[in-house]
């Protein structure tokens, strides 16, 4: 009986100690960057920053190439039609401070050791005709011939509807960085090397030239 009472007393004391609402109320709570990521980004960019439908963020080269300001701008203002604007001033859910926290968190956790791809970000204009031969040399094996005759192993990137949906920037990022998360050979190093700056510009210009002028949905 004495022991039972002692146990009860201990339990009671433990219960008194416990204040379940010691943390601030949810409205004032500061959400960590990964909490923000899981709520607002993981749907497209993948649960752990990779293997999502959109470009992986767990990509040191990408994060190293993209400046912090540019990253914040893209999160806040959106990009193309498929990357929404998350800044509250643009109708999104996040404050400027939260966006900065998110950007810094991603750069810190996933950008470590990244080597910038070292090309001017807003790329120089390329030549579509030169791009066609770059495409044939470096892209065709996986993505198929541009005329649709030889299907590739990984699906067409010269498909008109794909090109309508992918923004110029998205095409350029895809050429530069690939999707390393999807497996070897998808890391933006066709035939074992990164493309030269001019080659990238040319092949992007080639892809853009394949995009039908009408019915562009990037409105």
């Amino acid at each position: 009986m004495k022991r039972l009472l002692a146990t009860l007393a201990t339990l009671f004391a433990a219960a008194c100690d416990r204040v379940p609402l010691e943390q601030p109320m949810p409205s004032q709570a500061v959400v960590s960057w990964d909490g923000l990521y899981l709520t607002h980004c993981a749907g497209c960019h993948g649960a752990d920053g990779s293997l999502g439908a959109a470009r992986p963020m767990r990509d040191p080269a990408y994060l190293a190439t993209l400046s912090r300001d540019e990253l914040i701008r893209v999160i806040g203002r959106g990009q193309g039609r498929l990357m929404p604007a998350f800044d509250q001033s643009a109708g999104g859910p996040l404050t400027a401070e939260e966006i900065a926290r998110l950007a810094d968190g991603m750069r810190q956790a996933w950008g470590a050791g990244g080597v910038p791809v070292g090309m001017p970000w807003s790329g120089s204009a390329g030549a579509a005709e030169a791009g066609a031969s770059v495409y044939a040399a470096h892209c065709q094996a996986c993505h198929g011939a541009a005329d649709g005759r030889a299907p590739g192993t990984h699906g067409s990137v010269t498909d008109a509807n794909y090109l309508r949906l992918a923004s110029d920037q998205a095409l350029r990022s895809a050429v530069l960085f690939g999707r390393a998360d999807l497996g070897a050979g998808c890391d933006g190093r066709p035939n074992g090397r990164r493309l030269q700056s001019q080659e990238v510009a040319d092949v992007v210009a080639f892809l853009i030239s394949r995009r039908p002028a009408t019915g562009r949905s990037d409105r």
Partner: protein
Amino acid sequence: MLRGLRAILGWTEDRSGAIGFVAPILTHRVPRNAKWWYVFGSATLMFFSIQLVSGVLLATLYAPSAADAYQSLVYIDTQVPMGWMLRAIHGWSSNAMVIMVVVHMLQVFLHGAFKFPRELTWMVGVLLLFCTLALAFTGQIMRWDQDAYWGLGIGASIVDRVPVIGNQLRNIMLGGPYIGGATLSRFFALHVFVLPGLTIALVGLHIALILKNGVSEMPKPGEVVDPATYRRDYESRTHRTGVPFWPDAAQRDMIFCGLALIMVVGLAAFYGPFGPNGNPDPTVIDANPRPDSAFLWIFAALALLPAQVETFLLLAAPPVIVLGLLAVPLISNRGERAPTRRPVSVLVMLVICTALAALTWLGVTSPWSPVMDAWTSVPTPVRLVERLTPLQMQGALVMQNQQCRNCHALDGTGGQRGPDLGDVGSRLSWDQLVRQVQQGGGNMPAYGKTLSAAETVAVVAFLQACRTDGQPPSSIPGALQRSASPDLPPVASPVAAPAAAP
């Protein structure tokens, strides 16, 4: 010393007659076989007493003004010593009281204890049930958080549907044309003065009726209730074989009540108080209002009622339920009491209980509610991402971007309102997918005006790729096949099937 005490007692008894009044009540004879089945009424009363005491204490700390209520709850939870425990006990004990009152009622119904001469006891009990539910509902409003605000909004919308005078009734309920300080004050008065007072009076009446008519015996098959002879038989039986309530029957009540109380206090200590969940700010539209557990079944019913009969049922159901329950002893106040001899009654009871339990479960999971942040927080399954072509990948992005995931799951993750699309590619053909996306239907909005042709092609191409491993895409044997092809609108002339290609 002892003699002095006895003298004081004797004097008090002589002037007041208190013991002479209480003793017969405590020792009234109850049937010998009134065993563990009979503890639930006492437990309800005990939890009501807990509510009274903890409620009075909370009233000393709570600020019943719309401007301060929320902050005063936060203050009680965080600053007042043991304040959170007080709120937790009040909340958990309220749930326990609702459960006990329902169990008590089921037991009385199951054993036919509402029959002659205890009809009135049942009716007062029904009123007590609704008092308890009203206390629970108004108690949720005292929390004055988002759930309370929008719960009131739902209540106001229901009242507003009353023909002709709905709007006036709604304004009376809210104390004005919007939910505000006057509303909280009204519900505070109800929760703290009107309903507890009414409940105390009805509990007194309930107990007086029990004392007048005696506690019912356990039903025996074949032992029928006949109003002409029942009272005489009951009295002679209890006189012969009955036991005094105190202490013979009361000891079981005490054991059960003690255990139930320890459990409730334990739950309160472990799980803490309910809410408050978010400031009651009407301009915060990210709210996800949910009612307390006792009302989840109503919440579910409101989502599932067909629109054509919704208003009628909303307004007709409450009086029908109240009158129906009140009328139970009028429908049948004689005859068999044993559940084995009352199959229809027992069946009706089981059906109602099952329905309520199922609705409550649906209310917990609320599959009809869109998951508001699923489109940005629930990833496309990796299994699918790994096999997609660039176009299908864009389609997967369109799927997320267009908030499809708020209502549609892929491989079990995402909203539950619409069907899981993880294997839709083997269920619907290209044309069917295009039609469904563009025209909607079956409770899905039409996306025809929102999506461009390219987006439609991409999302349909993605949906066609949503198949379990090894399954071919859905198709009609022998028919021309459509699929994603360069530069074609989603329903362009069909592409010849591979076999027929040149």
